[in-house]
């Protein structure tokens, strides 16, 4: 095994076709951005699965802390008045 630093990890996002958002599809190792893009093309779009690729160093992604999942997301849990079904509209008004 060589003593070189680990080859950096990149996250790959692909837009399958125009009209759709880029979507996370996996990760790969590459020394720099150019190689990461080329590797992403070879690994994730061998069958025309993409029109556009984003790669981003995994270390640059800021993620919510899984240990804070409850405190972070729970405040939305009891706000049922944010949903349309919270409000009573008589049936004879029709679809709203």
């Amino acid at each position: 095994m060589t003593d070189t630093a680990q080859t950096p990890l990149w996250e790959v996002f692909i837009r399958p076709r125009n009209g759709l958002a880029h979507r996370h599809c996996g990760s790969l190792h590459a020394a720099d951005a150019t190689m990461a893009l080329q590797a992403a093309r070879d690994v994730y779009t061998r069958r025309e699965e993409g029109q556009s690729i984003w790669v981003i160093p995994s270390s640059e992604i800021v993620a919510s802390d899984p240990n804070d999942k409850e405190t972070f997301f729970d405040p939305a849990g009891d706000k049922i008045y944010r949903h349309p079904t919270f409000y009573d509209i008589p049936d004879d008004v029709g679809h709203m």
Partner: protein
Amino acid sequence: MYSQGLNGQNLDVNETPEFLAAFQARIDADEKIEPNDPMPAAYRKTLIRQIGQHAHSEIVGMLPEANWITRAPTLRRKTALLAKVQDEGGHGLYLYSAAETLGVSREAMTEELLSGKAKYSSIFNYPTLSWADMGAIGWLVDGAAIMNQVPLCRCSYGPYARAMIRVCKEESFHQRQGYELMISLCNGTAAQKAMAQDSLNRWWWPSLMMFGPSDSDSQHSDQSTAWKIKRFTNDELRQKFVDATVKQADHLGLSIPDPDLVWNETKNDGQGGYDFGDIDWDEFWKVVKGHGPMNKDRIAARKQAWEEGAWVREAALAYAEKQKQQTAQQVTA
């Protein structure tokens, strides 16, 4: 397939009975487990072992077929074989990145493969002696792999399940190109058909061994089933494979090398299925323990590829570092 880069978590969890029960309840409710979720150490370890072995199998699995790329008889067959071998490399990469989400590094997995510590599928330790083997491998080996992999698309660990969905989408072409190759040999000269039969004779039993030891001897099955990493037992999958494949061999006009193969209408809850002969488990364990015909060559080939690629990896990293420094200088200048 989230990366280890997103894993800031402390891998240790206090495995109280309450924690284990809550984890099992999530699994039982068909919830997916994602990389950052707390999980029992044994769940993590089982997945690292299984996904790692699976990734190694894809990578080592490129070797027996790569052996024939330059000798493919037509351009059509050559492009198909190249594309298939390239896919297997891709499968290895999807799987390595799924394993990495559990906190194991690519370097550590590579090291385990090269040192012989990690296992890979026993099937790839058999030699590819004739062109017909390219047909038999696609048909039988990829066919068996599909049987194994389809249920893994519903595995409880999210990144593994997502990797398997990609893999399964790509596998179908592998099996079809192999079977088509067998058809053309079987429609060819007597010598070509004999080559196809010889290939089936050599690959049949090793293909059945791909499903792993019999349920009565399998060490990992029960807990993996409870964790929904495994959805069917080795013997169930093996039976499905035999039942699906016999008809395909009949269609080719080839005979399966098993005198005990016989239709049994009471099998599979009365739907019928094939009884088949005993598997040579001594051979299986010999190959698993490193004494198959090609174990040494496979690892030697992987080591050579790794060592001869070292300067490329080093040069790419050095170039990236230099570019970074030049950009930094331009910014400060």
